[in-house]
């Protein structure tokens, strides 16, 4: 029961963060590049959940984020699967508990995204990306890493309040 509640709270947080990025950010800061606020929750689940749980969150993220972009679901799914594999390997090779590793993983994930998008676009699309939004992505990566710290605190609090203790013990959170 707690697992479902935890998943629902994370999904709600994800929707709020996506809306904040696509709507509120634009209304307050106009065209200034926005942080990719939808990625940290996904990365959090990649790092601190078992792979099946992470994959569940991966699909949910695709459905939630995919509804607010012109990027096809299939391509978004492919990119996120590759990011999941990348973060999984990063976790396997180097891992230390705490927020700094989470920030590093977020930075890694968000850095992978535009490269994978660009590469897959050229591989699979008839009208691929011609002008990569480099400036946008650089600002976006920095802002996402900056925002990932308070988000880590928020996610930790959510986990502390509504997550089965055995799960937290397994991930070394308790």
């Amino acid at each position: 029961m707690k697992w479902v509640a935890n998943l629902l709270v994370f999904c709600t947080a994800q929707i709020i963060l996506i809306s904040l990025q696509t709507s509120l950010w634009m209304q307050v800061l106009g065209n200034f590049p926005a942080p990719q606020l939808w990625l940290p929750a996904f990365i959090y689940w990649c790092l601190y959940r078992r792979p099946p749980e992470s994959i569940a969150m991966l699909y949910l993220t695709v459905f939630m984020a995919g509804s607010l972009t012109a990027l096809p679901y299939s391509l978004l799914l492919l990119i996120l699967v590759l990011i999941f594999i990348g973060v999984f390997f990063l976790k396997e090779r180097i891992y230390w508990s705490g927020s700094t590793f989470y920030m590093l993983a977020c930075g890694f994930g968000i850095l992978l995204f535009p490269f994978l998008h660009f590469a897959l676009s050229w591989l699979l699309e008839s009208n691929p990306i011609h002008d990569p939004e480099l400036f946008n992505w650089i600002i976006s990566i920095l802002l996402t890493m900056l925002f990932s710290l308070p988000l880590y605190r928020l996610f930790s609090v959510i986990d502390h309040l509504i997550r089965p203790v055995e799960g937290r013990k397994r991930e070394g959170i308790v």
Partner: protein
Amino acid sequence: MNFFSIDFKKAFVVLTVVVIPLLTVNMQRNSESGGILEPFRWISGLTQMGYSSFSSGVRGTTAMYLDLIDIKKTNLNLIKENAELRAQLGSMTELQLENERLNQLLGFKQQTNMELLAAKVIGKDLLPEHNTITINRGSEHGLKKNMAALTVAGAVGYVYKVQNYTSQILLLTDRYSAIDAIIQRSRARGILEGFSRENCRMRYLRRDDDVVDGDMIVTSGLDNIFPKGFPIGMVTSVKKSEYGITQEIEVQPIINASNLEEIFVVLNSHSEDFSPVDPNAQGESEPQAAKTVEQTL
């Protein structure tokens, strides 16, 4: 007691009381001529001046201090008032600009035969590589997939995802966007695709089609999405490959999508045609839609 007997002591007192003031009056009358009282008067004057200066100084300093306190208070009040007025002014300016924009939209809506629905831009795409916007109108308001989105000055894009109360518009500059378009002057026809954040390109134009820099690109109306002859953009470059049978042209859209705030969705175009009567005469002039609005305003 004898009537004529005089008490000299009393008489002296009476005389002193009566005579001394008389003498004083007399002395004052003669003071203009100076005399013995002049030094006293000078010293008194000086003393008075000193007191006056001192008193004036004290009063001045006290007043200045009190004024400063008052000025400080007034200044704080004025700063606060100024900030409030600035905020009000900003709000008024924003309202005025919004009013102007809405007036323009309303004028356009009244002028045209098309059935239009005004919508407000409430969001943009999740990823910087894609150019879409979210509007506050959905299927509950009669929106359907592939309806055209435009502003007074030109075409914006078309509806590609519809929810109950919101919809996403695929802008002309998005890579996934493709609409049927023609060169206004020569009537050469091609497909306009999104290319980058600021540019589109027109493909499948025949090599011998007459296109030059600065030509106006308008909607063909053949895709049943846009009304015919609605402005899209201007040709910025023409590329003809050495052996190809087609040519590619770059187009700068008239609408800067990053500044969009309100748009129209075409619910029914009623076969509205914005094409000029003589396309050759209209070729290098301003868009018909813009003219229509100008006439309205």
